[in-house]
């Protein structure tokens, strides 16, 4: 963000300009993948209802969905905070995880496949209808312009 925008002038602070600068920064960082984070997708769950009447609800919703759609089923570091018996507890936990993974991996990977397919389908539908609506709006505008031109002549 440029510092110039955050100067405190004699007339006060132009918070509209600051917010515009913040939005530009967010747009840039989003392109760079800074906000591609599943935690953000999950944090937006309560925000989605706020956008239900907004034109940009669906793209925003899909962005969140993209970040949250896949269940993390990979291995993770297993540790034990209690110093006493730490090693045997870690071994036990690893063993439990191994069994759980054996029984659940197939289920969760199928779920991830379904989630991914559903998301792709919704994205395709959204893109297709958005372009169709855009073309229709353009056509209506042309027809209206022609009608105005004809009635004027």
């Amino acid at each position, binding site marked *: *963000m440029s510092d110039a925008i*955050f100067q*405190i002038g004699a007339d*006060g*602070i*132009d*918070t*509209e300009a*600051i*917010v515009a600068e*913040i*939005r530009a*920064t*967010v747009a840039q*960082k*989003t392109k760079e993948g*800074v*906000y591609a*984070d599943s*935690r*953000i997708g*999950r*944090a*937006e*769950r*309560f*925000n989605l209802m*706020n*956008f239900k009447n*907004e034109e940009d609800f669906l793209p*925003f919703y899909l962005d969140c969905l993209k970040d949250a759609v896949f269940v993390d089923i990979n291995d993770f570091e297993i540790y034990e905070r209690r110093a006493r018996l730490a090693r045997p507890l870690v071994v036990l936990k690893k063993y439990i995880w191994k069994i759980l993974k054996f029984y659940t991996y197939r289920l969760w990977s199928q779920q991830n496949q379904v989630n991914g397919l559903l998301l792709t389908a919704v994205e395709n539908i959204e893109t297709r209808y958005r372009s169709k609506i855009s073309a229709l709006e353009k056509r209506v505008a042309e027809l209206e312009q022609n009608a105005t031109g004809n009635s004027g002549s």
Partner: protein
Amino acid sequence: MNTAKRIAFVCPRFAEGGTVGGAETLLRNLATQAAKAGQQVTFLTTCATSHVSWTNTLPPGRKSFDGVDVHFFPVDQDRNEGAFLHAQQSICSQRKATLDDEAEWVDNGVHSSELYAHLDTHREDYDRIIMGPYLFGLVYKASTIIPEKTVLVPCLHDESFAYLDCTRNLFERVRTIMFNAQPERALAERLFNVPREKSHVVGMGLDPVNIKALTDSPMLPPQYIIYCGRRETMKGTPLLTDYLTVFRQRTGRDIRIVFTGSGSIEAPDILRSAITDLGFVSEAHKHAAMAGAVAFCHPSVNESLGIVILESWLCGTPVLVHAISDVLRDHCARSGGGLWFRNYPEFEESLTLMLDRKDLNQAMGEAGRKYVQEEYSWERVTQKMFHALDA
């Protein structure tokens, strides 16, 4: 010149003790200020304290509060609560409810025949009747008794009930409408074509806060944001706790959150240790907590005034609000006292800026304070109210 000397206020509940609500507090404060200004003020309300059960818990009769003559009338007990809830559900689930739904909703809402009879009998005793908020059957019915003298304080939000025909009728029927903020007036103009000459932005005044006197502070964390008020989904508190959790995880900053007010706090377990819940506290303690915060965060999208952000500014603390709320965003833009976000990334950037740029943060707090002192002093608000009553 104040030509309206005898003023009646009508509100389904009276703000006293445990009965707390933004609209109720607003109407009571306006009544108190009108009485202080020398007007003859009567407050007509019900014996109910709960806006859910509407049970008559207070004794009927008259009582004086701060120079205001308060009349408590019993709520009619013949309402069909099931029909009311059913109609309310239909209205909330669709933007355009049927006329039957609307009739069920109004008829089975809160009513007081004795209050209506009093208004009818004393129609010549009052120059103006100020009533609100718009959401209650009692206000809808009371406004039909002497509409030519009725002044509505709607506390209007962009919600399903605002789109009902009965709401439109109410706005069309009354003599004058007093709004809390410019965006609320703009919403009414958009929905009901309210003519400019009958609408006025008045709001509520705030008493100055003496921060220097606030030394007896509760135990507070070193660096925190604050939220004061009801904790519920409609107010956006779960969104706030989710955002702060992710903010702490992503940035590694140990910024905490302080809550005052009522209701349980819905938050991820991982955030629990970073939450300080002060519950109900005195005004002085609330202001002390506000004064020490990095920012007051108000994630609610349905506010008609946003009293708490005005209080926060009086304490010199800038605010961070949800952009969807036209009212809160408008306050921030006009005052220069805060920032607004639409989503998590904007929240993260805004809060980071507020944490990193202390000079800017302090200047925003000062700008907010100046705005409240100029626009929301009681002197200014009372002036605007009398102007609206005389119009």
